[in-house]
């Protein structure tokens, strides 16, 4: 049976790799999310904070690649997620040509701990007493380059550094490169490993919530909480995937990026990004079953997210469920949009939409916030993300490929 041409050229997700403190498979993570579990807890060392960190993370349990020993935590996390995604897509040891495999990494801070270690040693000890092997790993492109090198990805190796909007922007770029035929299979990967200096800075800026103070979309929240995580998605044209016998789990539709440097402006910018992403997906707000928001517990971000969604969904008769998985996993910066995309895929393909853990007093009313897990009937999910620098990004994930 031949599929409609649009279904062949639609960009499908054929592999998912995910590691969070709540689990190391998509099913395990989503079960935990729908059960309302959270990984956010007080962490003691070396910088005390409330957040979410992998306990005893051992990369070699998931992947064993050359050079793993010298890579930093974010890079190791990304390598693990990439391998899991490639295995899930049936692309490991499959003979798939490396010349057709690309890697796009969402990484704003992924190199930073190596850079801090290297630069601090240069200043304190001088170049002659500093490990030269750290140098090429200290640049922003290093984690993505290491992942591409580890899996022989020769079609492209690209790093986008757009803060919290990075991974949705990276997905958008991945869709474009796959759709245009520049890459046949593209791993879009993001990882967020905690870095003490960033935790310390955020604490001193008053951005981090204390124990029991982290809530999302809730007026009682007193800040955000950082959470480690990594996730990778494999994108392919649906027709290509079908040809090699791979299953399309879901389809990535339109993605749009906008910007404003002001708080008020970001509400409008995020609304605009959502509208553009829906238009590119030939989808209307009425057709949305789920919104996975990038709200993170700070008053500023939660207000922007909620008011943008109110503006988008105000006239919609059947309000989609609004969820925010950061309430369970914390703010994972570069990885957050991809985590939401993975959660959306699980929800649209038979799972339940996850509740917003602890939400009791909404900061902004008028949205159908999910406080209990529920199934989603309509087949489209909207995902939103923002950066602290003003970038806004939105993306649509669908159960079925769009047919013109």
């Amino acid at each position, binding site marked *: 049976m031949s599929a409609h041409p649009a279904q062949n050229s639609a960009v499908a997700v054929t592999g998912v790799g995910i590691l969070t403190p709540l689990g190391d498979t998509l099913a395990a993570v989503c079960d935990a999310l729908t059960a309302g579990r959270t990984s956010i807890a007080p962490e003691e060392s070396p910088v005390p904070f409330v957040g979410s960190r992998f306990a005893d993370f051992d990369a070699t349990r998931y992947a064993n690649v050359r050079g793993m020993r010298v890579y930093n935590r974010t890079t190791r996390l990304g390598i693990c997620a990439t391998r899991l995604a490639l295995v899930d897509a049936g692309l490991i040891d499959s003979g798939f040509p490396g010349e057709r495999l690309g890697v796009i990494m969402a990484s704003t801070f992924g190199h930073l701990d190596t850079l801090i270690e290297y*630069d601090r040693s240069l200043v*304190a000890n001088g*170049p002659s007493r500093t490990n030269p092997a750290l140098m090429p790993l200290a640049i922003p*492109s290093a984690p993505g380059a290491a992942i591409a090198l580890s899996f022989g*990805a020769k079609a492209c*190796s690209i790093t986008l550094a757009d803060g919290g909007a990075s991974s949705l922007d990276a997905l958008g770029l991945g869709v474009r490169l796959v759709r245009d035929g520049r890459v046949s299979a593209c791993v879009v990967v993001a990882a967020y490993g905690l870095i003490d200096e*960033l935790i310390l800075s955020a604490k*001193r800026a008053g*951005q981090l919530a204390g124990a029991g103070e982290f809530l999302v979309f809730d007026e009682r929240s007193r800040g955000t909480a950082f959470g480690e995580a990594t996730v990778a998605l494999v994108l392919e044209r649906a027709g290509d995937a079908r040809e090699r016998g791979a299953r399309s789990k879901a389809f990535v539709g339109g993605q749009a990026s906008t910007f404003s440097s002001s708080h008020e402006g970001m509400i409008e910018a995020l609304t605009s990004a959502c509208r553009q992403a829906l238009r590119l997906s030939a989808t209307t707000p009425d057709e949305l079953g789920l919104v996975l928001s990038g709200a993170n517990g700070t008053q500023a971000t939660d207000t922007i997210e909620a008011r943008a969604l109110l503006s988008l969904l105000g006239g919609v008769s059947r309000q989609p469920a609004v969820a925010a998985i950061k309430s369970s996993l914390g703010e994972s910066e570069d990885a957050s949009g991809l985590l939401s995309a993975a959660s959306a895929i699980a929800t649209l393909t038979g799972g339940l939409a996850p509740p917003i853990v602890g939400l009791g007093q909404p900061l902004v009313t008028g949205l159908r916030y999910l406080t209990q897990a529920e199934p989603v009937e309509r087949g489209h999910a909207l995902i939103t993300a923002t950066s602290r620098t003003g970038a806004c990004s939105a993306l649509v994930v669908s159960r079925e490929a769009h047919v013109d």
Partner: protein
Amino acid sequence: MKRRVVITGCGALTAAGSTLDSLWAALLSGKSLLGTVTNFACPEIDVLSGAEVQIPGSDPLPESVDSDAFRARCCHIALVAARSAIAHAGLAPHAQALAGAGVVLGSTMAEERQVGDLSARWVKQGSDSVDGGFLDRVDNHKLAASIASEIGLSGPVLLNATACSSGNAAVAWAFDLVADGTTDVMLAGGADTFTHVVFCGFTRMSALSKTVCKPFDKNRDGVSFGEGAGIVVLEELEHAKARGAHILAEVVGYGLSNDAYHVTAPEPNGAGFVRAMEQALATSDTSPGDIGYVCAHGTGTLYNDQGEVRAMKAVFGDAAATIPISSIKSTIGHTNGAAGAIATIACVLALAHQVVPPTANLVEPDPEFGMSFVTGEGRKVALSACLNMSAGFGGSNVCVLIARAP
């Protein structure tokens, strides 16, 4: 249906100055602007050699970006180039023609100086040196966001960190966003400044030239760095015509690949470059015979020179020996993430003047190559299309094809 994408503005801040005339004069002179660096120091290295930028006094760093211009120098340089680019395009900040416009900025090291600033204080104060503003200052996206804030952009604002191919990659992504109708106007380019990592790291790897950068010369001895920024304004053809913009050139395609060979070394046979070049040609319906100038990555290292020349021979065949080739890195230094963007501007100028600029310091071309390197002075040519090559640490290759204005 892809739309045509033209270049309507260029802004460059390099060791040659802040105007296109000064850049073109420097490139044509065949002389190197490499000298002793005075605005930056590294531990244990007494004298740094590089091509240093003088930021015009009339181009201040906004206090809102950072109170410390030294540590925010990359951002400052990028802003100066962006201001020049939109002025050159006949646009003003917040102009109606910029509605929905965005920017893609590339950088290799981005905000590394913010880490250098922290390191200097950490040595004395330990963890007390980490202040509440560090997280925001070290966020590399700030480079693109600062441009967007100042120019008044509301479209895609992306920071591409793809090592030293970042500048070309930025032009490529921006090209796609205009070509597919996402926006009518995009700024694209790159910026980088001197950092500890660049000087100390390359010194320890013995990749830094002890003399001056001499691309493709048999006596080459490594890279010489420069700081700088290059920004171009990309615009949909009809949009540019409708506002009466002066069209400088057309971006007709790009190609990308990755070596996946080594953390620092390029693939010796140039196979990655070949794939990027072939993709650029194929996606733009350009034949190898249309290329009148190859603006080479040309860093002055043996591995780069060999791989790049092998790739050109593989793609162009016998014609490789006759296509004019030069590298601008021996004039203004290797500007890392800005290099591809400034080279794009060099291609625009070459097309406008129908002259290929020479490679400074190239005195004795490596006899193994047998290529048509332009040396000494500019070469008059009938030029319709240029291929701009770039490569980065980790193996990322991006080639951009730039043609005469339609």
